[in-house]
């Protein structure tokens, strides 16, 4: 397990004077699946943007794979280490064809034409983008496919860490599972570290092994998801509630139910065990 990103004593203040982050310390390694949760305005997005160099720290520093994000002119190197997928794919589709879109990143970092081609084909395959849409204008694709093209265009840069902003917003159950399973595969099979920013606790419980909770610019909790969801009083500070089934268990802890069940299946098993005793 190598360290990928190290955040040290990070403070961030916006140019207009609004403070956004206070003394954040964080580390991540390869092959992690992390969720950032917290109410709007808590700093999740700001922190992520500091991690990929879009924003520079006001105080403290962030080291990405030996690079200090405060250095100038290292955007091209940073994007090959930390990828950021925005919430609305429309904000990231600037080219007239899917092929050009996926090739955009590799072209920006100055790879040769043959390398670019190789990267595009590989990324498209991993992201499930078929070659029959390569010449289509992204505007005409349906939302799920546009999202996959956006992800493919980040994958083409081969970043070890990929941050995805709200992967399941507006999606139905099947679509959400599809995209989350895809992100899980990226971690399991390709070794990426996935960080998701989300408000859907059920998704966090099902997929994220580690959860970081932010509230008003500070890190409130950072640990295994199970432990994080066992602390509803702290979560309340940032207007987050654990999944319903976890709350069910927490309400009946005195009667033997677990305080950290992450799914209905776990609750069923716990109930059976409890009854057997």
């Amino acid at each position, binding site marked *: 397990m190598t360290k990928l990103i190290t955040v040290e004593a990070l403070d961030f203040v916006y140019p207009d004077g609004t403070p956004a982050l206070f003394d954040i310390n964080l580390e991540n390694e390869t092959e992690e699946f992390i969720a950032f949760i917290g109410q709007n305005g808590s700093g999740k997005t700001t922190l992520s943007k500091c991690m990929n160099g879009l924003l520079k720290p006001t105080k403290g520093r962030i080291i990405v794979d030996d690079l200090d994000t405060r250095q100038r002119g290292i955007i091209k190197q940073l994007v090959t280490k930390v990828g950021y997928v925005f919430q609305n794919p429309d904000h990231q589709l600037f080219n007239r064809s899917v092929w050009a879109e996926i090739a955009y990143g590799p072209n920006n970092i100055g790879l040769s034409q043959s390398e670019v081609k190789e990267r595009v084909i590989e990324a498209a395959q991993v992201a499930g983008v078929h070659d029959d849409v390569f010449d289509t204008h992204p505007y005409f694709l349906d939302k799920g496919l546009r999202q996959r093209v956006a992800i493919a265009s980040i994958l083409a840069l081969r970043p070890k860490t990929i941050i995805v902003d709200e992967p399941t917003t507006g*999606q139905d159950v*099947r679509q959400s599972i599809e995209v989350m399973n895809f992100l899980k595969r990226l971690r399991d099979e390709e070794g990426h570290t996935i960080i998701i920013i989300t408000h859907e606790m059920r998704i966090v419980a099902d997929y994220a092994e580690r959860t970081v909770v932010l509230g008003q610019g500070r890190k409130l909790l950072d640990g295994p998801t199970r432990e994080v969801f066992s602390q509803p009083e702290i979560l309340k500070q940032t207007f987050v509630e654990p999944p319903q089934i976890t709350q*069910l268990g927490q309400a009946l802890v005195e009667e033997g139910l677990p305080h950290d069940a992450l799914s209905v299946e776990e609750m069923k098993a716990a109930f059976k065990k*409890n009854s057997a005793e």
Partner: protein
Amino acid sequence: MDPAIVFRDLQWRYEHRKNFALKGINLEIGKNDFIGVVGPNEHGKTTLVSAISGLIPHSYNGIYKGSIEVFGKKVFDSDALELATNVGIVFSDPESQFTAMTVEEELAFGLENMGFELAKIRERIEWAAEITLIQDLLDKSPYDISGGQKQRVAIACVLAMDPPIIIMDEPTSMIDPLGKNLIFEILRRLKEASEHTLIVVEHNVEQLAPLADKMLLMYEGLVDRYLPTKEFFADPSYLQARGVLAPESTEFVQWLIAEKALPASIDLPLDLAGGIEATHQALQRRSSS
């Protein structure tokens, strides 16, 4: 009581699409009912509610067969003003619904369109702002308020016009959890007042189910299931196959019933409080037997 909305074999195909989005809807929605509409994306939920509000066929081109009647009058034969007076609709993107320069103007716009006098406009604005808790935001511009607040403004605009039927198409999908809770709180108040027919399309079944009198599943352009909420969730695997997940506590209690830890006659809980109560009962039964 006469139903508020009646669909008679309604079919609709959008221009430029191959398939019919609605394949023959036959449905009656009662006055002052709260209907929750669920189902996978692109299976007709939005099309269904657009047909009630009149966006279909007045704003979209396509093929329209069959009819819908709102309070006895066909939607096809009504014009935009009549429709807006009878049916209010809130969409999922808070940005696009805010077209004025301040919240107060936004609220006044729909009321001015109705032709109300100034005193009535002011009264309605105050009333709607109170229910949606936006009294402090009246003078603010869209740049000064959050997505959740904008969405409450959108709801306030519809409420101010006081249409008897209010539709919300995925009102919380782009909103943070705090905003979501506030919006569902508004829905709860509206339900309690029981003065409007409410039709809410949502993916967030957990917060929708406790409020809905009946749930409607749209699947492949047809009304697949339309039942009082507790009956609706009776067959969880059927629903899951069609992309609808019951609230976790409901699912768990159903399992308890299947395992005979609870009698089948029990009232199926739709929210956390009900789930805790039922589970508690089951645990008591276990320990006493």
